C-alpha cells in the first residue's frame, strides 16, 4: 500500500521509523513537514529522509509543500500527523478534505479536525467510498476505537469514564504520592517533558474534553463540541485536598465522563477509591466502558509517546490495507 506522510514531529518520525523497520509492505510515496516536502512514486528512502530531517530540519525541498504532496502524489492512504489546532482544525482539516475528495483513505492522530469537523469529514469519506480512521487521537496506544468497533461490536455503550490526559495524571500522582503542591508537581512535569511551557491546554482539562468530544460523537453519533463539555481543571487543587482524600483510602484524578442518558458530558477532578481500576500511575491513560452485554471493560495504557502513538496509526493503516486496498 502506498502512503503519504504529512508531519514529521515526534509522531511522524515514530510512524516513519516503524514503517521502515517492520517491513509491513507500506511504501511512502510522498512526505512533508511544515517547511518542505518530497514526492517519489517509486518510494522514498525513509532512512535518508530522517537523517536529512535531523541534520537540516527539512525532510525534502522547499519547493514542495504539504498541499502539493496531498494533491499530487500517488498514494492510497494519507497519514496526517501535523500539529493539532484545537480551535480551527486547520491546516489539517484542509489536508484531510483534499485527500478524501481524491478518494484516498485518511489516518490521522490530529484531534482538531476530528473534534471539530467530524460529521462533515465522515460524510465526505462515505461519499467517496473511503475510510477515515483516527485511533491515535484518543488515549495514544490504547486501541479504544478498535475495541468499540470490533471487540465490543453489538454492545450498547451505556457510559464511559476515562483518564485521558497523562500530564494531569502525572501531576495528581505526584501530589498524592509525595505531598507536593500543584506548582511543585507542575514544575516536575515540565522538567520531565510531560508539560508544555504553557500548560493551560492540559491542566484546565481542555485536552481531555476534546478527546471526550471525539469519543461521544463516535460512540453515540452525537454532534457535541468542546463547549458542550462541563469542564473543570486541576490547577486549583491543593495538597491538603489530596491528603483529605487519602485519609479515606481515596485519591483525586481528572475524570472524563459521558452518560448520554443523563445528558452528562463532564471533565472534572473526582474523588476516587484507590482500588478503582481507573486509578493509574504517572502518565498512563485508562478508559472504562460500561456496556449492556460485556458490563465494565477497562483499558489501560500509554497515552502519548512517539512509538506508542505510531502503534495506533499502524493499526489503522493495516486495517485499511486489509479491508480496502489489498482486495482491490
Amino acid at each position: 500500500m502506498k502512503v503519504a506522510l504529512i508531519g514529521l514531529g515526534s509522531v511522524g518520525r515514530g510512524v516513519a521509523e516503524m514503517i521502515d523497520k517492520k517491513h509491513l509492505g507500506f511504501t511512502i510515496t510522498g512526505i512533508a513537514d511544515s517547511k518542505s516536502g518530497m514526492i517519489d512514486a517509486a518510494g522514498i528512502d525513509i532512512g535518508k529522509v530522517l537523517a536529512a530531517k535531523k541534520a537540516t530540519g527539512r525532510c525534502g525541498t522547499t519547493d514542495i509543500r504539504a498541499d502539493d504532496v496531498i494533491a499530487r502524489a500517488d498514494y492510497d492512504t494519507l497519514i496526517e500527523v501535523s500539529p493539532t489546532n484545537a480551535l480551527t482544525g486547520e491546516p489539517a482539516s484542509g489536508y484531510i478534505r483534499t485527500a478524501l475528495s481524491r478518494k484516498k483513505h485518511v489516518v490521522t492522530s490530529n484531534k482538531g479536525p476530528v473534534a471539530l469537523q467530524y460529521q462533515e469529514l465522515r460524510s465526505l469519506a462515505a461519499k467517496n467510498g473511503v475510510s477515515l480512521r483516527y485511533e491515535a487521537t484518543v488515549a495514544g496506544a490504547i486501541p479504544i476505537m478498535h475495541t468499540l468497533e470490533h471487540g465490543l461490536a453489538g454492545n450498547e455503550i451505556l457510559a464511559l469514564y476515562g483518564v485521558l490526559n497523562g500530564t494531569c495524571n502525572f501531576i495528581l500522582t505526584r501530589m498524592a504520592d509525595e505531598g507536593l503542591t500543584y506548582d511543585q508537581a507542575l514544575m516536575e512535569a515540565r522538567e520531565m517533558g510531560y508539560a508544555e511551557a504553557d500548560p493551560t491546554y492540559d491542566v484546565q482539562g481542555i485536552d481531555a474534553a476534546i478527546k471526550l468530544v471525539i469519543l461521544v460523537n463516535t460512540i453515540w453519533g452525537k454532534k457535541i463540541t468542546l463547549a458542550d463539555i462541563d469542564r473543570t481543571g486541576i490547577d486549583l487543587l491543593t495538597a491538603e485536598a489530596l491528603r483529605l482524600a487519602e485519609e479515606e483510602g481515596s485519591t483525586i484524578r481528572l475524570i472524563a465522563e459521558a452518560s448520554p442518558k443523563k445528558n452528562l458530558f463532564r471533565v472534572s477532578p473526582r474523588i476516587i477509591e484507590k482500588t478503582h481500576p481507573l486509578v493509574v500511575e504517572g502518565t498512563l491513560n485508562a478508559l472504562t466502558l460500561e456496556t449492556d452485554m460485556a458490563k465494565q471493560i477497562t483499558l489501560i495504557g500509554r497515552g502519548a509517546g512517539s512509538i506508542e502513538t505510531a502503534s495506533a496509526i499502524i493499526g489503522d493503516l493495516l486495517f485499511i490495507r486489509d479491508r480496502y486496498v489489498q482486495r482491490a
Partner: protein
Amino acid sequence: MKLEMKDSPGQLVAALKPISDAGGNIIAVIHQRDPGPDSDTLNVQIVLELPDDRRESLINGLKAQGVRIQRIGEERLLYTRTVIMIGHLMHTDLSDTVGQIDSTGFAEVSALSMCMPAINERSSSRITIKALSKTDMESALAILRRVSKQKSLLLIEPMEECT
C-alpha cells in the same frame, strides 16, 4: 428502616404486600433460623427504604394483614457520599453552605474535616453527606454544585458507585 417480627408461618409473605403497597423498597431480609437461648428473640428482620410520610400507612397495612411487628428501627439517612471543597470557605460563610444541605430535611452534613494552611490562602475541606435515598443524594449534590458556583468554590465530587 428496619422491621423486626416473629418468625411464625406466613408472617414474612404477609408482610410483603403492605410494604410494596406503601411504596417501600426492600433492601434485605435477614432470617435467623436459630433463635438462640432467649426464646423471645426476634428472628426476621426486613430492611427497607420508605418515604417518611408512608410510615403510618405501612404500619396499618401490616396490622391489617395480621403481621405482628416486634420493633421498628429507623436509620433515617442511608446514603453516604464524601465531597471535597476548596476555596475561601470561611469567608464565604461555611455555616451557610452546610445549612443549605441540613435545611433540606432529606440530607445532612454528618462530618467535616478542614485544613486551613494560612490566612488568606484557600482552605480545603472534606464533607460527608448523608441522605435518605440515592435521588435525595443527587439533589443534595446539585445544591452543593450551585452553592460552589455562587461562592467560587471548587467542588470535587466522588465517582458514582458502579451500577
